Structures are given as C-alpha cells and as structure tokens.
C-alpha cells in the first residue's frame, strides 16, 4: 500500500515537473519553423450567374520560394531562369496590374502573389490610378444595357483605368500585405536569403518561402453553390456560398399617411453606400461613396432646420432620403427597391401608403463629390428621358434651379454634355420604369476624376482629406478640412434645392450645412470610427463593438446574413438629423414604442456626455431600412440565365492565412528523412529482438510477482 501511494506521489511530482517545464519552454515545433503574417488581406472568390471570379489556393495552401519582382529583369528572371520553382512573387502596388498578374500566372512557375502595400508610403501608389472595376461599371444591369446608342460606354468611358481585375478568375492566391513592419522584415529576409547575385545567379538553400492559404468552398457559379448549400442529404450541411446583400437606408421628411392618395408626390434624394476591392477588409471608399453619404447626410441635417415648413404644408411634396446598398455589384439595392415597389411593399412601414415610381416627381442623386473636374461639379441627366418634351423642360428647370442655388452657396457647378448618358447611378433602375426628371451630381464631366474608383487605394488622402501633422486625435476630429468645407457647400445646395422642389418657395438662408458636422463625419468614416459622433449615436451594446474597431469600417456590402456597421451608422445619423428627441423615456420604453407605433421608428442612442456619463436619448424618426438583397434570391424559380437581377454571391472558406519559413536544400531534407527512416527501422528491429528474448529479460520479475502472490 505504502509502495503504491509513494508511486502515485512520484507520478504526480513528475507530472507537475513536466507541466512547469512546459510552461517555461513551451514553444511548439511549428512555431519555431513558421512566422505568421498578421497584416495580410486575401483576394477571395465571388460568383455570379455565369462565372466564378477572384482567387483561391489549393486546399492545403500554396507554397513557394519568395522572389521580389520590381522591374522587367526580375520578371524575366522569375519566368525564365529561376531554378527553385514554384515561386511566390512579391510585387509592389505600382506593379500590381492585370498584365503583370496574368504574366506571372500564365508562366506556370508562380504559385501565388503577395502585393506590398503600405499605408504610410504614398510613393508606392500607382500614379496613373488603379481600379479593379470595369471600364464601364455596371453597364450590363444599367439603363443602357440594350441601347444601341449608349451601351458599353460608347460616348464616354467612365472608368478608363478600370481593367476589370475584379472579374478575372485567378488560379492562384493573391494577398496584400499592409503592415509596414512585416513588409520591412520580409524585405530584409529576402536580402539575406533569396536575392540573386549581381550576375543573376540564384542563391543556394536555405531560402525564404511563403505559404498562402485561402481555399474557397464554392465553385462554378451562384446557381451551383446556392443549390449545393440548400441540399440536405448530408448529416452536416455545408454552406458553399452566401448571397451578397444588406439593407438600404431610407427616411422621409413627412411621415407618409396610410391613406394618402395615389398622387402622393415625393422627391428622391439618393446616393450609394458601398464599394468593393480585390481584397478582404480593404474597402475605404473615400471618393467612391463616403463623399456622397456625408453630403447627403449633411443636407438632411441642413434641411431639418426648415423641415417644419414642409411637414406643415399640405401642398408640399415629401422628400425621401435614400442610401442604396450593394450598388457596386450590379445595383442590388436599387433593383430590389424597384422589385419591392412592384410588389406593393415599399416602404416597408405598414402604416404608410405604398409608393412606386409613379409617385416620384424628381430624383436627385449625388455620386462621387471629392474631386473637381475643370474646378467644377457636374450635373448629368439622361438623354433618353430628354427625348420627351415635358420631361426635358422639367429637367432643364431643375438643372437651372440647382445651378442658381449653387452659385449662391459658392459651389462651382455646371451641366455636363447632354449627349452623354448618365454615369453609373442607382437612378438608372428607376428610369427603366419611367421617365422621371432626374439628375446625377458628380465630380466628373466625362471620365471619372477618381483614379481609384472602387479600389483599396480610394483612401482619404486621395481626396485631400488630411490633417496638419501636429494635431492630436481630438484636434483632428474637430479640424475642418478644405474638403469638409467644400462638401458642406454642396450639402447646402442640395438641401436648398430639395426645399425649393418640395415647397416651390425660395429656400430660407437658415438652410445651411454645418462644416463642423461634415468634418466630424469625414473623420469618423474615413479615419477613426472610435470618435465622439459615433459613440453618441450608438447604444451601449454597439459601443462595445465600436471599442474593438481597429480601422475605419468597411464599405463593402458583404453577405446578407451579417449587418454592416456603415448601414447602422448611416441610419442612426439620418435619424438624429431628421428626427426629434423624446425626453424622459427610459431605454426599454423607447424600444417598446416600436411595437405599438408604426408611423415612427424609435432608436436609443447613448448621446453626449453629461456630467461624467452618457445619459442616453430616445430619437423618434422615420429612418428605416429596406432589404438590399437581390430579387434573384427572392423570386421563386428565378431564371438565372435571364440577366435581369444581380446574382452575386461570396464563397465561404475555412481559413485564410499566410506564413513564412525557411526551406532547407533538398539534400538536407532527404538526409533528415533517411535518418528518420533508419532510426525507425532500427528501433523496430530492436523491439522485435527484445520481444523474442522476453524470457531472459523478465524472468526475475515474473518469479517476483509469483512470490508476491503467495505472500
């Protein structure tokens, strides 16, 4: 017994000792070999009705020896001479073009591409611009898809830098590395281990290699992966892909009554909320959509100062602010809104009269507003609508009114060539239904002035939204940049134009957008979401989320099952600007009102700090959400080949990772393996031999056991 207990104690002690040792020296072999790269984002796979686009690695990941490709000699060396294939090409952002990617891919000697992209270094930005979108974005699903005079951007190529990189199916993984420290360390390892000699002679092993993993689950097209996701033959059903989609944000100035007449007239003021880029989590969208969102929100705030004139008048037209989502992917949001209107379910609020395109008297859309073309903003209109006399004179009146208001608000604005069609815009979906007098205001006369349309490089500094170097975060938050001043003037113009359209009266001077609010919104959307404004408009729960934000929120529509931060923030800002405070309500009571009162929506926000804590406010407004999920996923038995609606889905994946390590020479690898095999064989032999001679070895203990028994 004593022996037994002392044995257990000994065991325990050994166990404890092992545990202690392992805490001290616990470095797994894996970690000694690999270094994970944390600052990477991957290109992944998306699908539509006919194609798969984007990137995928093999299931176990792709591995290759690193080679830095910075000029033509490097390309040649990699594609023709390098003896250690397969290679992984390191490539600077300036060289990341479709041609170069295809050259590397088609050489068959490259297993993956890593783009070096640093936030701090502007010199790495391609000078001529970079846009992964098409040169004629969204044309197939727009107003002019089948129009012999205007299709395929015959009159004007809107996005000439766009080489449609987004819509290629790559057979290798492409990652972007944005962390400057990691870029530096990879480059220094490269110098040490991989860089070929001056004579172009390859280096000997050990060489630095990289492994990229982003194997995609979906394949072929959306129909296939959606069908496979819905099959329930398996015990654990798999999701192969998810439809892209989110929510549109809308708000009306008046609360539309249930039994309004069919002639209830509204003015749409719209913009789009989303963008895309080749890489996951890199969706800055400064000019592509933020300028539009901010301008429209500030216009709502400005208009709210005189909104009682509109609300209290019986003859005034209602104004609907609309922020469309998923527009970058073949107009998901706007085509869904049209679909909802066709089915009498717009707006979603059941207490309101249903609206459709016949109720819309005017449509003003703001597009990109961050730049100026010939130092002006430009008003575009649809040449097809203009063929109708009445509509043409309405549009002309509208344009002249906006232009005269713009002069007053110090915004240089002019009318674009009437022979040109509308640039890509959500209003195109409405014009398919009816000739509405509509305009699109944007910062380009013909081709985009934005050289980084829908790309990861469409960052704040490309629209000069930068701060003097010596400011701290609070000062930056309050700093009114030139861009903010310009946008505020644009907002004033829009707000006053909307007032004039609605009431027919001259807009009062008090309708003026606040440059400070514009500056705050630009800072929060583009620089740092952990800002005072966002903290004020979210509730306690969302504020916890906000505290974890590491960089500006992405402006990518994402999959339909997750709700975007940007959507919620836009809705809450709109509610704050147009709505009113309900005093003396608790959080629960505020939320409860949503169940009983169908006319308004109630949102609880933390509000400003009073004393030393945020008391919270209840906001009553008409701000609401409508689905921005393509009708293709709603219509039963949708004909996928019809090309009527957007069919974009995003593939699911299990893991995305990139890690670097040193590969030894084949000689060393073979030696290690052979030694291992020899050791295995020898030990097998030894065991066999011992087994044969068991009697000799254990004779004594047997007799010992027997004698114990007898005892």
């Amino acid at each position: 017994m004593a022996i037994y207990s002392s044995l257990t104690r000994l065991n325990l002690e050994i166990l404890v000792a092992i545990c202690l040792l392992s805490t001290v020296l616990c470095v797994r072999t894996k970690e000694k070999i690999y270094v994970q790269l944390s600052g990477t984002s991957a290109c992944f796979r998306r699908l539509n009705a006919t194609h798969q686009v984007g990137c995928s690695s093999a299931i176990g990941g792709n591995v290759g020896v690193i080679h830095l490709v910075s000029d033509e000699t490097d390309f040649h060396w990699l594609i023709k001479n390098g003896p250690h294939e397969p290679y992984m090409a390191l490539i600077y952002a300036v060289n990341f073009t479709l041609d170069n990617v295809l050259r590397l891919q088609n050489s068959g000697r490259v297993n993956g591409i890593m783009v070096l992209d640093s936030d701090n270094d502007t010199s790495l930005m391609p000078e001529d611009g970079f846009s992964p979108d098409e040169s004629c974005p969204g044309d197939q699903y727009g107003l002019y898809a089948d129009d012999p005079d205007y299709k395929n951007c015959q009159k004007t190529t809107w996005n000439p830098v766009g080489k449609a990189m987004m819509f290629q199916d790559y057979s290798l993984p492409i990652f972007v590395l944005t962390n400057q420290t990691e870029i530096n360390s990879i480059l220094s390892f490269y110098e040490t281990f991989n860089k070929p000699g001056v004579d172009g002679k390859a280096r000997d092993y050990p060489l630095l290699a990289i492994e990229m993993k982003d194997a995609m689950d979906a394949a072929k097209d959306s129909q296939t992966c959606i069908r496979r996701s819905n099959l329930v033959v398996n015990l654990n059903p798999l999701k192969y892909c998810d439809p892209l989609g989110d929510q549109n944000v809308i708000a009306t100035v008046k609360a539309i009554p249930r039994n309004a007449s069919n002639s209830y007239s509204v003015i749409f003021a719209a913009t789009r909320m989303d963008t895309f880029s080749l890489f996951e989590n890199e969706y800055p969208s400064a000019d592509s959509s933020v300028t539009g969102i901010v301008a429209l929100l500030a216009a709502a705030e400005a208009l709210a100062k005189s909104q009682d004139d509109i609300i209290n008048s019986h003859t005034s037209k209602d104004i609907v602010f609309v922020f469309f989502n998923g527009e970058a992917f073949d107009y998901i949001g706007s085509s869904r809104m049209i679909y909802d209107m066709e089915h009498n379910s717009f707006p979603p609020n059941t207490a309101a009269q249903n609206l459709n395109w016949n109720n819309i008297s005017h449509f003003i859309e703001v597009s990109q507003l961050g730049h100026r073309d010939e130092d002006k903003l430009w008003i575009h209109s649809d040449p097809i609508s203009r063929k109708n006399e009445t509509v043409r004179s309405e549009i002309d009146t509208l344009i002249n009114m906006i232009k005269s208001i713009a002069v007053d608000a110090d915004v240089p604005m002019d009318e674009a060539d009437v022979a040109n069609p509308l640039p890509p815009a959500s209003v195109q979906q409405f014009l398919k239904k009816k000739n509405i007098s509509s305009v699109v205001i944007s910062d380009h006369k013909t081709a985009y002035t934005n050289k980084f349309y829908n790309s990861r490089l469409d960052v704040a500094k490309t629209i000069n939204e930068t701060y003097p170097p010596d400011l701290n975060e609070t000062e930056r938050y309050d700093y009114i940049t030139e861009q903010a001043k310009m946008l505020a003037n644009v907002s004033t113009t829009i707000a006053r134009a909307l007032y004039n359209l609605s009431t027919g009266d001259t807009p009062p001077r008090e309708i003026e957008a606040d440059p400070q609010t514009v500056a705050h919104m630009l800072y929060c959307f583009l620089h740092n979401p952990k800002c005072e404004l966002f903290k004020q408009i979210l509730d306690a729960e969302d504020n916890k989320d906000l505290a974890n934000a590491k960089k500006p929120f992405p402006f990518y529509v994402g999959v339909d099952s997750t709700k975007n931060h940007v959507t919620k923030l836009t809705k809450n800002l709109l509610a704050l600007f147009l709505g009113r405070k309900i005093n003396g309500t608790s959080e629960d009571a505020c939320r409860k009102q949503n169940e009983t009162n169908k006319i308004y929506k109630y949102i609880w926000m933390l509000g400003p700090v009073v004393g030393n804590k945020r008391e919270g406010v209840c906001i009553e407004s008409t701000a609401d959400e409508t689905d921005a999920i393509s009708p293709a996923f709603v219509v039963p038995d949708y004909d996928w080949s019809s090309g009527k609606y957007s069919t974009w889905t995003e593939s699911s994946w299990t893991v995305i990772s990139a890690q670097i390590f040193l590969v030894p020479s084949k000689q060393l690898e073979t030696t290690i393996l052979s030694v291992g095999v020899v050791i295995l064989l020898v030990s097998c032999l030894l065991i066999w031999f011992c087994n044969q001679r068991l009697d000799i070895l254990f004779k004594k203990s047997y007799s010992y056991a027997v004698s114990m028994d007898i005892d």
Partner: protein
Amino acid sequence: MKKAEYVTEILTYTERRLLQILRKYYLGGFALLPFLWLVNSIWFFNEAFRKPVYTEQQQIRLYVIRSMVGTLIWLAIITTWVVIFQLNRASWGATADYMSFIIPKGMP
C-alpha cells in the same frame, strides 16, 4: 454409436450446414446484394478448392464459382459507373449534385 461413426456424423453435419449457408448467401446475392457473393467467394474458397474431396464439395464448388462470377460482374458494373460518374459529375450539374452524398469543396 461408435466414436468414429459419431465423428463422421458430426463432420458431414458441418459440411451440410456449410452448404446450406453457402446456398442461402448465394440466393441472397440475387437480391442486389453483391457483398454476399463476395463473402461466399472468399470465405468458402478453402472449402471449395483446397480441402480434400468430400461429398458436398462438388456442390460447394459450383456455388462458389457462381458467386465469384457474380462478384466480378458487379465489380465491373460498379467500376464502370464510378468512372462514368467521376468523369461527368461536373457536366451533369444539378443531376449529379442530387445523386451525391458529399460534394467536394471548391470544384465545379
């Protein structure tokens, strides 16, 4: 009964039982259960071909050979089907998906 007779009795009894089971499996195989034939072909191989001659062996051998032929035919059918299916899975589209239990990831 003498001991020797008794032993012979038991032996022939066993062989008769074997034949019975073999027959049952063989007939069962026609109910689209080729694995029964496979079992027959392997399990009764020694009995049919490698044991010294006895009365029932003739019949046992007959059934085993027939089971073997059946197994081979099934093997040919299944192999052909698998090859055809794997080669055409992608191009058959929806039909092939509905036939599949596990659909590979990341492939058409």
